[in-house]
């Protein structure tokens, strides 16, 4: 039996147009909230148009009309079944400041992935350190950059250069910008490589560990242990943990993807990943500033003991922040009992 298309279209046109108007108004609101009257109207129009679509689909008469109605139903469906975030979540600046407490809370909640990241980095360190310790030839392979291979030259340059030309604050500022950008990019990649089921994350962490271990042993062997500690630690105490946290985020993501089907509250889970990434980005901004403005000044200007003391103080503050800030003892199970909104 064939639908009388013309009559049908003439009858239904007003409600299609009404729905289109209503949807246009709703979609232009960033928070997508609708008042009760609109909700009622939307529900009613949506139901009617869905029936219209079914009639056209089964008649299979008018591909254009079917496409048009499908589009309307899809848009109506999206508005009707979407649970918009509470207004307070989006427009209150105070909620945005919550990142400073949410970051350590999330860090503690997902600490086992941090443990995995530390373990892999330590393995890398041991591998790199032992290789350099027992096979000096390994230095050429493990440390690609020339300045890492020749500590004597490098230390000489740094100490002399630092004394000779006091680097201008301007170059340091530009340098710090570069550093921050590069470090965040590497950390973000480490966190994103979780999609390779964590394999990419593990490889990056391991490589980082090898480099770290090899440099440490190499410089210490040549008797520049103190110089190196004072050179690397003021920014390293933020940089290294932030890469570890990137690894944590990566492993967390890998686990999230592997267990996606059984995990109902994916939205909350993704937020945890985002919070970790945002937190480590903040840490890297600080690390970049320290590296450019502080770490590059050496002995006569800044005594090594002072630099190491600053580094220790930073580390203590960081640990206190990560372990104590925000609410204590947040249960992971309490979070998963939050009703799922999206799926």
């Amino acid at each position: 039996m064939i639908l009388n298309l013309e009559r049908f279209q003439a009858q239904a046109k007003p409600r299609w147009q009404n729905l289109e108007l209503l949807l246009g108004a709703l979609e232009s609101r960033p928070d997508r909230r609708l008042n009760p009257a609109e909700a009622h109207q939307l529900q009613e129009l949506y139901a009617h148009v869905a029936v219209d679509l079914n009639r056209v689909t089964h008649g299979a008469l008018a591909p254009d009309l079917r496409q048009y109605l499908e589009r309307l139903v899809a848009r109506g469906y999206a508005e009707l079944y979407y649970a918009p975030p509470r207004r307070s979540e989006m427009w209150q600046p105070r909620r945005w400041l919550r990142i400073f407490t949410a970051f350590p809370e999330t860090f503690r909640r997902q600490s086992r992935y941090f443990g995995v990241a530390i373990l892999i980095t330590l393995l890398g360190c041991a591998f790199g350190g032992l290789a350099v310790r027992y096979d000096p030839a390994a230095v050429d392979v493990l440390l690609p950059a020339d300045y890492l291979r020749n500590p004597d030259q490098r230390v000489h340059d740094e100490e002399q250069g630092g004394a000779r030309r006091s680097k201008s604050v301007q170059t340091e500022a530009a340098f710090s910008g570069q550093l921050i950008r590069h470090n965040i990019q590497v950390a973000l990649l480490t966190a994103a490589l979780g999609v390779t089921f964590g394999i990419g994350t593990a490889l990056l962490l391991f490589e980082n560990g090898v480099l770290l271990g090899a440099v440490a042993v190499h410089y210490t062997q040549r008797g520049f242990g103190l110089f190196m500690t004072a050179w690397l630690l003021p920014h390293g105490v933020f940089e290294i943990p932030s890469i570890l946290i990137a690894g944590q985020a990566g492993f967390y993501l890998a686990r999230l993807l592997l267990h996606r089907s059984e995990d109902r509250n994916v939205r909350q889970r993704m937020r945890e990943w985002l919070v970790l990434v945002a937190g480590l980005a903040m840490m890297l901004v600080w690390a970049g500033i320290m590296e450019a403005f502080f770490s590059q000044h050496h002995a006569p200007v800044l005594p090594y003991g002072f630099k190491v003391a600053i580094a220790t103080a930073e580390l203590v503050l960081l640990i206190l922040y990560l372990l104590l800030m925000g609410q204590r003892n947040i249960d992971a199970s309490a979070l998963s009992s939050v009703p799922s909104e999206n799926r």
Partner: protein
Amino acid sequence: MRDTSVTRASTAVELTIATPEGVLFRLPLAGPACRLYAMLFDIVIVLATVNGIGLLVYWIFAKAPGFGVMMVGLAEFAIGFAYSALLEGFWNGQTIGKRLFHLRVIDEAGLPLRIEQAWVRNLMRVFDALPFAYLVGGISVLSSPLMQRFGDRVAGTLVIRQTPLSIPGEESWTRQKYNSFMEYPTIAAHLRRAAIPELASLIQDALRRRNQLAPYARREIYRELAAYLQSEVSIFPDELLERLSDEQYLINASGILFGDQRPSRVQS
């Protein structure tokens, strides 16, 4: 509760969603090419914005160019991510480039995407852009049944094509004043009853595309359709056929099938 299944048609990939009300609708998915164009357009916008801000920053930091470089470098990096994430999150899943190319990002379940999803899919660009020119993302799009790059897979999002549609206009031939088929109400009623929907829409499509067909193709198609109708569905007498071209035959048939011209009305 919400069933989603994927169908792959010959011309386009689409996602079919079954709503709890038992309605099926299809969403056409966007291919890699138009997404690439949209992205290039967005990159141009971001670069223009960053350079505009850069001029301002260099002017403010004229005494301290190093800080200017630092600020611009960081701003470029941050704006690169924030531009897409914030626009997609708060502007109905579209960046300026996507709006221009009629693309839209949505949740896999057919719902609007959330701000978290927008951030995740855009931060994942660092992986999709590997090793150069979005190779990983491109391969992922081509190999994924839902045309998702890795960022989309992680965030659970899709990019759909959303060309603006308007209510299709009524066809002129259903409203013609005189239809010679009405002189034979019994045969016309039979035509109306016996034509299957596929055949009816075939006739309508053939008429609708009249001006897109080359003359010889049009003649041939109309001749075949009219001959098929005449021989298989309803047989109108020869004296009527002598007066009608194949095209007019189809227009009349379509008027009977779709129009408000009920054959019974002529009898009364």
